């Protein structure tokens, strides 16, 4: 349905988007995940037509959008911090898009009610939007975006300003609402938890390009690059060199580690070439001779279902693991990591 092809854009002379391409299928929710300043909001604004790309095409059902002005695209966008019209009430905000379609009054009213009902704000219809809490404003903005039944919904970090608990709750609600509506959606965020909750498909945006694309699970399980791994909160890196290919082993300052290639389609690597190893945090358990790591427990933090253990290794580097039991701080600790939880990256 939506086709984004080779989009280029510079911002104040610096390249921001360098040939971004992806598609959105019917009923699909994709999440654009990237650091702040990575150009993901700009990409949304290019799709809506609020900004122009320097190169590239946006198509809807094969039709180029370039000549169609913003207000004729029938796309919905929910703005960061909502951009609710302060001079209009809740119901008037929601009715705005319907009025622009010149729908008859009765129909506008019934669809406003329907949209407000979907976000559980029917009782708030007559209130001024300036008297609402952050979460309520977010819902009004959502109702306003869905009321005209756009053919594509876009969300620009819509939960950014809310506190953690509310964020999780609203993300869940949004997920079920999007499934009910069946409207394809693009959701921009820098928060991986939100992305995991909402996305059918993740698109990782890095250095102006799509760094990786896939289901949340596949991206988390096999990050295509160290950047993706780091962005998803995987930070246990260890330098080494390729020792043997069969079995796949690497020599490091902390001993020999067995593991797997993070990216199966990697270019050929000669024995002895430098590598970076990612140790996934799910450590501990397997009693094997290899893949052993030892160090001193520097900190142990209770995290609910597990403990977050910081281990200072012999070479001075710090690793973070999730462990089922508490470990005494200051004591030495040695444990093994399954080869499945060790991923090899070519040195970048």
């Amino acid at each position, binding site marked *: 349905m939506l086709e984004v092809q080779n989009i280029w854009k510079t911002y104040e002379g610096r390249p921001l988007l360098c040939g971004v391409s992806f598609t959105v299928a019917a009923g699909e929710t994709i999440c654009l995940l990237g650091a702040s300043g990575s150009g993901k909001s700009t990409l949304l604004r290019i799709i*809506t037509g*609020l900004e122009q790309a320097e190169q590239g095409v946006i198509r809807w059902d094969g039709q180029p959008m370039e000549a169609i*002005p*913003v*207000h*004729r695209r*029938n*796309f*919905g*966008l929910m*703005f*960061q*911090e909502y*951009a*609710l*019209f*302060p*001079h209009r009430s809740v119901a008037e905000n929601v009715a*705005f*898009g319907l009025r*622009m*379609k010149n729908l008859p009054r009765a129909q506008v009213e019934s669809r406003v009610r329907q949209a407000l009902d979907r976000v559980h704000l029917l009782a708030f219809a007559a209130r001024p939007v*300036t008297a609402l809490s952050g979460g309520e404003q977010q819902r009004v903005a959502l109702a*306003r975006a869905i009321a*005209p039944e756009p053919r594509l919904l876009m969300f620009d970090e819509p939960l950014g300003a809310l506190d953690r608990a509310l964020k999780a709750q609203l993300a869940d609600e949004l997920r079920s609402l999007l499934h009910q509506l069946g409207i394809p959606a693009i959701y921009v965020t820098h928060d991986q938890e939100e992305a995991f909750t909402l996305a059918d498909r993740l698109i990782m945006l890095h250095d102006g390009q799509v760094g990786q694309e896939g289901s949340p699970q596949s991206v988390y399980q096999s990050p295509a690059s160290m950047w993706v791994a780091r962005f998803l909160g995987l930070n246990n890196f260890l330098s080494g060199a390729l020792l043997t290919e069969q079995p796949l082993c690497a020599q490091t300052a902390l001993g020999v580690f067995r593991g797997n290639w993070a990216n199966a389609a990697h270019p050929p690597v000669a024995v002895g070439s430098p590598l970076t190893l990612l140790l996934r945090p799910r450590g501990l358990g397997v009693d094997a001779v290899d893949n052993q790591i030892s160090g001193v427990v520097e900190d142990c933090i209770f995290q609910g279902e597990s403990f977050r253990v910081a281990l200072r290794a012999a070479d001075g580097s710090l690793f973070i693991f999730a462990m089922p039991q508490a470990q005494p701080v200051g004591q030495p600790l040695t444990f093994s990591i399954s080869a499945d939880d060790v991923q090899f990256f070519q040195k970048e």
Partner: protein
Amino acid sequence: MGKTLFQNMRRGVAMPFLWALPLLFLAVFFFYPLIAIFRLAVTAFLEQGLGADTLHEVLQPLEFTFWQAALSTLLTMAVGLPAAYVFGRYRFRGKNALRVITTLPFILPTVVVAASFNALLGPRGGLNLVLMNLFHLADPPVQILNSLAAILLVHVFYNTTIVIRTVGGAWEQMDPRLEQAARVLGASPARALWEVTLPLLRPSLLAAALLVFLFDFTSFGVILLLGGPRFATLEVDIYIQATQMLNLPLAGLLSAVQMTCTLGITLIAAAVSGKGLTPLAPRVQGEGVQPVRGWRSRVAVGAVVALLILLLVTPLAALVVRSVTRLDANRGERGQVQTGLTLEYYQELFINRRQSIFYVPPIIAARNSLIYAGATVMISLSLGFLTAHLLNRRSRMARLFDPLLMLPLGASAVTLGLGFVLVFNRPPFNAIGFPFLIPIVHSLVALPFVVRILQPALASIPISLRQAARVLGASSWQVWREVDFPIVSRAALVAAVFSFTISLGEFGATSFLARPEYPTLPIAIYRFLSQPGALNYGQALAMASVLLAICAISIWVLERVQWDTLSS
């Protein structure tokens, strides 16, 4: 023990005493003269009754005043709104310089502006001379002076700035996402403007329009100098009735009508301002301001810049150029004179041409003006500091006094002048004493500005800042030197510059109070401008140029201390 006594004194005894000073000042020099005007009007006309003649004499100028103000306001909005849009939504090279230029009308004296437009559009002005030379005409083709058009033009010159500042500022501060949200929801650009942008700008639009209307309503110098005898607004009529027809009761009645109207407008303005204002600031400062791209933006910005330069810069440039240009004398008046550049008009400022007691060399007028301005700065700043300090205490007295203080803003200068004449034209003030009243009336006009500048600066110093300095080891004197003074000194400088330029340019009230032998610069310019002869004309322009230079320096100083950030 001693400390408690001191505190008691400050809280219990000293406060009412301190309040007494500004209250007394306003009572004696503002309310007393105004009451005197009302009493005069009431006694004179209630005894004789309001005849049809009198009614006509009041209604005619009232009607003209209203409708020229309404017309001026409409025109000003028509010019100011596109400019406000360009200022609020675009950034372009030279924008800052243009912004500085638009601040000029804020402090330019009416006589300078009148002289400037005379130098540009008058029969001996730049435009006519160029046209006459080009097409070999014997008579000046542009006859705009002494017409309604001239009045409207100068009002637009003066007040476009207000629209740009008020509406442009609000536009810049408005989150561009609101308009974008409307666009995404299916509104065309025109519909987004109509349904979202304009309603959100309404408070600033209303405030700007009312302020412009008020200024046009009370305009005096412009109409006296450029409108000619056919156009009498209330202000001009008060002046004429009081000083030329010597019909004080009618002048008083006109003044009473004038005051009632301005008070009404001020009250509406106060009620409107601050209402319906919602915080709309963009997430990122300056986010809604874009560079100029595409031919449409180029045309819009280019047209506005060109229009503003044409409107604001050309008259002032014409003034300066004309003040150093000698022409073929006015129908051979002073013998054979060659066209060319000359400093003659400036040199003449120092020479007493006519041996008359009522003729005063212009340099003396400049000296008088500087003395009055210096005195005004001293009076208005000392009263202003005291008042600002008291108002910041948020006492009941402060709430009561705050609106009272702003009243002189709405009172017309001519009315004040008339009031002073009524009240003080008797021993010990009369004649000889009048020069001393000039800095007082100037201070009265300047005081609201001074207080509004000083008050936020004084209030902006959080107590924690002083406490932090104390804890870090500063003595109370050091606290004042290191914390209070640096913060307040900028505001004090701005206030001083403001009251200085207000005093230098004040014309309406001064025209009542200045004795022939003690003229100020604006009075001298007025006299020279209304007398025939190339030399008189040249000297008037030279003096106006000097005032213009002083104003330009003031603007430069104000820009240096960034009074914009200060006043916001």
